[in-house]
């Protein structure tokens, strides 16, 4: 009888890839269409607590109220919080390493909105970024109806 081999094996899945086609619904369809066609950032306002949700949505979870009132918010606002991401990680959209690296993830408090927009900031030197700084959306030249119709935010002070 052959001697027992003590090696421990792994089996790779290979490049698994499963494309999805997500229906985003009426509210986010309008949100993305406004970005694409008019470079406008839209929110919805809760009839009870008056909170302006941006990105918009149908129901205010706190009040459990349906929101029908659409509000245009500014493309300018303040940095609410940020991080400069240095560590390499897989981009779940592609299965490849996330590019570019480093990048800055920023939460923007747009004028007229009560929630923050998560997006990129085009500055990766953390010493040059302060919470409260004024920023403005830079729109992509070619817009396809996605969150990337805003290319990134830039500091305007």
């Amino acid at each position, binding site marked *: 009888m052959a001697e027992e081999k003590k090696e421990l094996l792994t089996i790779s899945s290979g490049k698994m890839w499963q494309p999805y086609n997500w229906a985003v619904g009426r509210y*986010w369809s309008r949100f993305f269409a406004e970005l694409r066609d008019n470079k406008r950032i839209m929110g919805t306002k809760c009839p009870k607590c008056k909170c302006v949700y941006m990105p918009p949505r149908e129901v205010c979870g706190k009040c459990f109220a349906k929101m029908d009132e659409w509000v245009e918010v500014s493309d300018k606002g303040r940095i609410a919080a940020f991080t400069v991401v240095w560590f390499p*990680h897989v981009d779940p959209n592609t299965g490849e390493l996330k590019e570019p690296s480093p990048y800055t993830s920023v939460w923007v408090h747009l004028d007229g909105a009560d929630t923050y927009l*998560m997006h990129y900031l085009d500055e990766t030197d953390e010493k040059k970024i302060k*919470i409260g700084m004024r920023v403005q959306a830079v729109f992509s030249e070619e817009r396809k109806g996605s969150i990337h119709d805003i290319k990134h935010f830039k500091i305007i002070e």
Partner: protein
Amino acid sequence: MGKRVGIVGVGQTHHRSKRMDVNGVELINEAVMRALDDAKLTREEIDAIVIGNMDHFEGINYVDTWSVDGSGAYMKPIMKLTTGGTTGATVGINAYYHAASGLFDVVMAIGWEKNSESDTTGAISTCANPWLERDFFAGAIGPLATAATMYMQRYGATEEDAAIVAAREHNNALNNPHAHLRMKTTVEDVLKSPMLSYPLHLLDMCPRSDGACAVIFASEEKARKIADRPAWVHTTVTRHDFTHFGDLVGWERMPTLYSASKEAYKMLGIKNPLREIDVMELYTPCSWSGLSWMESLGVCGLGESIKLNREGVYDMDGELPINPSGGVICTNPIGATGLIRIAEAALQVMGKADKRQVPNVKTALATGFGGCSWTDLMILGETPR
């Protein structure tokens, strides 16, 4: 009101970065056998099993089905739960619910993960809304680092304040043979470790681990027969809030943790958690959480944790030791992590925490953290109530 329930057995693996020697079923079985041995029970005496992990880390769905051989669930009721980072705490809480319902007497909770089998950040990112936030989000690390900048700005906390938390937890882990990272660590080591995502350094952040944990809950009558000194469940509270990270306005006080702990203290008549709770095992995924979330837990006022942390209040010999096990920043098999908090809190109450034992623990608090900003909380005590 449900029946009174006690924890009668705890088992966990020796957590590592990569367990090449076992597959998922075998890893789960290791923790299950240890929990059964601890409670001196056989598989036949378990009435039901609650199991959980996050499928996207391994890319193999339905652990409730494929783990049956190892979990001991053959011909028994088994339920699978996944609630993001809170998964481990959720399986514990739901095992408690089942035993408290009176429909089952002895219920085993199992949490597990083999995080070595995929890119943790790539997998976690699939939790975020794919058309709004996923691309900007950087897994768990991004939002935690972002929240840290808010706390720095508002209260003047520094990277050194967070590094004090990290060094303490890494040194606590030296007393825990089950911990994944066990290395003597100074504040300077933490500050010199590579920047993952400003202001979070490598040693500020939890690792990704392979590991499993099992905890056995029993209704009062059974619990008294099984264990000399069960850890009694005093209460549990679960709070979920948002699904969009951009909704976390004012995250300097974590709303779910604040709400859950306030409700739990009210139920138990706890007025001063700093004095009335003897030890906490918290799902603090990074050092910054170990600093600021103490305020959400009502241990002190907003911004005051910085001082308490520097004074050593959270040290092993301090007024309220936090994470004697070394916590999540030393051990993080994600689907097990919340259950390990409950297990470690139970060991403290049962007086079985060996070198990491805090003397005379009467009340212990455990939490799970996950999702956008969710809390699963459980308080255990030495007498039933």
